[in-house]
């Protein structure tokens, strides 16, 4: 069942002189089992949108259907905890949420809250930490003592350990070095490919979006301007101009290759794949 936003609006500081409509009549269906990117300028409502997905914010108007839950404006909600277990939200600069004495305990904190028994929570925590490449000798170290990149990965492990069906990431790579960023993206792509998790990524990084995301939503001033296949969006020069977006370098490179007589398939979106395809043609 897809995630359905139905005529959803969200107003900050309702009834105050400076009320602000952050989301305006959003109608959107996000398919399950794929990677969807949400892009848009700062202040376009991206974070507000994703905070609805696990009911941190409730719609001011309209409704949101997600998994078996239905969030309707102005209705008391009772099932927040199971919803939050099923929809994991990784915040921007998530490293600031760590607080337990040890890394392992911190990662097990979520699963314990969601009612997993201690033993299983610790097992899940250890597995999640392995997935994010935190070596076992760090398990008993304080999460406040490790590097920024490691902290980010521990925080992400804290969400993965809860075993959510949908994982939402708000700018997961902001402030990380390129290698750290790639590690994290690869991790989420593999969660999607292997475990069929639905992934929703809020990002400013168009290259990453082009490389990995199946569909893209463009938000601007609280409204949806585009929703469709990522490849179609980035192939459409006029749309890019309209949304004030730069063409990803990889697209420019691809187009140059095609212009110069190389045959490039539609699936080749990353540098690695392009390299592989043209390597064969150069040898000939």
């Amino acid at each position, binding site marked *: 069942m897809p995630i359905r936003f139905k005529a959803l609006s969200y107003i900050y*500081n309702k*009834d*105050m*002189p*400076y009320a602000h409509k952050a989301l305006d009549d959003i109608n959107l269906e996000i398919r399950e089992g794929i990677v969807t990117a949400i892009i848009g300028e700062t202040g376009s409502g991206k974070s507000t949108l994703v*905070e609805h997905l*696990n009911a*941190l914010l409730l719609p001011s108007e309209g409704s949101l259907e997600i998994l078996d839950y239905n969030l309707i404006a102005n209705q008391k909600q009772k099932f927040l*905890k199971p919803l*939050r*277990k099923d929809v*994991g*939200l990784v*915040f921007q600069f*998530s490293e*600031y*949420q*760590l*607080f337990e004495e040890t890394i392992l305990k911190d990662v097990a*904190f*979520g699963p*314990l*809250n*969601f009612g997993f028994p201690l033993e299983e929570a610790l097992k899940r925590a250890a597995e999640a930490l392995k997935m994010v490449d935190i070596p076992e000798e760090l398990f008993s170290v304080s999460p*406040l003592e490790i590097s920024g990149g490691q902290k980010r990965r521990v925080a992400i492990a*804290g*969400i993965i350990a*809860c075993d959510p069906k949908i994982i939402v990431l708000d700018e997961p790579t902001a402030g990380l070095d390129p290698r750290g960023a790639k590690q994290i993206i690869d991790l989420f792509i593999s969660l999607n490919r292997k475990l069929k998790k639905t992934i929703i990524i809020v990002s400013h990084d168009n290259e990453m979006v082009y490389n990995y995301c199946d569909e893209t939503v463009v938000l601007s001033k609280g409204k949806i301007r585009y929703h469709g296949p990522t490849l179609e969006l980035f192939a459409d020069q006029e749309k890019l101009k309209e949304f004030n977006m730069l063409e990803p370098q990889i697209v420019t490179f691809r187009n140059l290759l095609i212009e110069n007589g190389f045959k490039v398939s539609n699936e080749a979106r990353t540098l690695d794949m392009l390299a592989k395809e043209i390597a064969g043609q150069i040898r000939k």
Partner: protein
Amino acid sequence: MNNLVFGKYIPIDSFMHRLDPRGKLIGLFLMIAAVFVTRSWWVFLGIAVLLAIALLLAKIGIKMIVQSFKPMIVMMIFLFVINSLTIRTGEVLFNIGTYPIYEDAIFNTLFVICRLLLMISITTLLTATTNPLDLTLGIEWILKPLELIRFPTHEVAMMVSIALRFIPTIIEETIRIMNAQKSRGVDFENGRISEKIAAILSLIVPLFSVAFERAYELADAMEARGYVPGAKRTRYRVLKFRFTDFMFIFICALTLALSIASRFVL
């Protein structure tokens, strides 16, 4: 957190917002003095009318003022009950059982409550229309004479303005960390005591670590820009009294004068 109205700044542009913060502070003191000096309902009425005009000029709805009364309601009811039962002057109005309730009890209490409401409204108007940083500049200016007895007005003002500057930041951080922990299944509203303690801990520890980090960064940034406590400094924004500010203070002073006069005349 967002329901707190008392002391909240409303960032819009209006006549009241543009007044000089020093003038507004002086005006606030004069008006509150006027509210406390008088014993006349007519003066209250006059002040209420002035307040209504100021609210219109400030583009702040009456709703916000009413909301600012909310925290005081319990205290007012308490005051009303105690006063009604203890003041025993004037005519007997009616009896509760065999207990007489006097005229003065009701009217004096209503008067005190109106006095409080006016005071809260005036203060809310000041904080709603004055940027906290401007407010500290104003306070620093008013405290200036204390420098004669070597009171470090500038440092105190700097500390206060840094503290004020960081309140919204810290509130933002708090909401962010709360959201992050809610996403990990923490329930801040319900649950047993032990769960509540764990919930609070999951908020306090990261909040402290963020606050310290910010403090270090700020200290470094201030040093990097050559901040020396106690050194003579100039300001980018120079406060200037304009004609309207003098008019504003004049009206407030006139109100106080009339209020004092009302004690002798009425």
